[in-house]
């Protein structure tokens, strides 16, 4: 029997923690180090030295400095995931960013052994079979607010049961929150195409996913394993239908949950990261 793959994951738990297994899974021994863009690398390097991973995965290409990639003597991969930040964050005068980018020396795609452009996997312990969370269906939105997001959500916030957590949800609190809702809404920051970083999480958690059209779809099928909306009015109407007859959407939740198996961490990481 081969040794499990030792992987150190680097990022912010509140943004990508759901992609890192907190418990041992077959073929993978994971460790996680909290690291924010612009922070000094000492803690990260100490963690790597202590855990001696076979490979390091950094969430977000620009999260660490080019020199830090070079200072790690095992392959370093980047998972290309956009940081979850409110509009205007990069222009904030008190932050180490500017319109030119990071303060300096941040890694780019070419600095890594490999850059992965795939949806974030979901830690096995966050998989949960679809079930009714309460008498009245409640919807969840995770992620920073934006003018566009609020335009889409405002009517639903006032007419339906909707929880919006802008940042900082992780670990047990994240799992408990997912268990307290029936529906997840995924809305993008801008009008461009995309596939939200938490789409796979919502499906794995057994929630009914309501999303703007996904592009690329990564195998998901609107109307089969999730539902699409294109406007605030459509969202209000759809949440009203869910509220009136939650059981009518059980088949879609179950199909979504099955589709989420493609994102299961214990399946994705060993296949993707094992030495070739």
């Amino acid at each position: 029997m081969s040794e499990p793959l030792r992987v150190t994951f680097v990022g912010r738990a509140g943004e990508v923690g759901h992609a890192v297994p907190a418990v041992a899974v077959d073929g993978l021994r994971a460790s996680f180090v909290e690291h924010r863009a612009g922070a000094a690398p000492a803690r990260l390097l100490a963690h790597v030295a202590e855990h001696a991973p076979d490979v390091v995965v950094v969430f977000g290409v620009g999260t660490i400095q080019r020199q830090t990639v070079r200072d790690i003597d095992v392959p370093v991969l980047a998972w290309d995931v956009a940081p979850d930040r409110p509009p205007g964050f990069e222009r904030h005068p008190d932050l180490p960013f500017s319109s030119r980018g990071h303060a300096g020396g941040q890694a780019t795609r070419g600095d890594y052994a490999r850059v992965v452009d795939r949806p974030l996997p979901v830690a096995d312990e966050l998989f949960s079979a679809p079930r009714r969370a309460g008498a009245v269906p409640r919807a969840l939105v995770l992620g920073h607010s934006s003018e566009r997001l609020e335009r889409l959500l405002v009517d639903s916030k006032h007419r339906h049961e909707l929880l919006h957590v802008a940042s900082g949800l992780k670990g047990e609190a994240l799992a408990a929150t997912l268990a307290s809702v029936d529906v997840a809404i995924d809305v993008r920051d801008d009008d461009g195409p995309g596939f939200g970083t938490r789409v796979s999480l919502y499906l794995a958690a057994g929630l009914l996913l309501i999303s703007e059209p996904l592009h690329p779809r990564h195998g998901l099928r609107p109307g089969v394993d999730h539902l699409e909306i294109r406007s605030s009015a459509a969202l209000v109407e759809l949440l009203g239908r869910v509220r009136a007859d939650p059981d009518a959407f059980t088949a879609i939740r179950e199909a979504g949950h099955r589709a989420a198996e493609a994102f299961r961490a214990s399946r994705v990481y060993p296949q993707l990261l094992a030495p070739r």
Partner: protein
Amino acid sequence: MRPRRPHGGPLRVAFAGQTTFFEACSLQAPAGGLIPRFFEFRAGGDADALLAGLREFVPHVVVVYRPEVVPEGLFGELAAVTLGFLSEPLPRGGPAHVDLQRRLRELEEADVANFDRFVSFDPLIAATAEAVLPIWRSLPLPVADRFFAPVAPMGHPPRVLFVGRSTPHREFLLAPAKLEHDLLHVAFGVSGTELVELLHRHDVAINLHNEDYPSFENRVSMHLAAGHLVLSEALDPLHGLEPGIDFLQIESASELRRALSVVTRFPRVHHRVRVRGRLKAEGFRASRVYPRLIADLLADIDAFGSSRT
């Protein structure tokens, strides 16, 4: 005809408002001779359902948060004393933020005849509100008793919480703190037991105004009641709180970030502020405020009558 209060007997008091925002300000258990019940009601909500619920409860007094959202004439036949509790900031004279102008326009939609008396949460908006409806008195929104908790040992690192919707002003002030610290930002939709439990899992709370104008948000007193260290923008009015003694005042994004850094490195450094803030929160306790407020309300109507009756 209004239900008669039995001599020395309990009063049924209905509280009505959007649960997410106002249940935390209401009386939630019998106290001081009041028997409370909360009724969900929001702008555009089901007014007939509210009225049916009130008729079933037969309250002596109805307290409505945001009275401007009650449809015209809804309480015309309601046999109860009605109190409208203004809870939104308004212009204070001079040039006003567009957000305040919008709220004033909403207040102008209020049907004054629905209510016997109006209370404003802020004495500094009373003059503006008086142009629309008569303000009987001003007092801050109370805090439901269930939110009160002893000052607990600070977590390592401290668990930091901001409960409030996102606005550009708030996100500007929060951005560096969010980058450097673990900070849970719940933007909408938590109330009741879930909110109580959320508060009890945190040590430090942040209060920021909606936009760049002064006010006193009821989350300040709620967090003080929960035993939190409160970091807040300048409050106006202060409602008896003292910056630097009951809470820490922050003026900028970098000050907020710095304050969190200090408390992260030295978790007990502001312990005395938490203790003092928790003591001051007793002045906002719902079971203290509402019995006195409602006794005064009934006495005032007895003495001076009401244009509604």
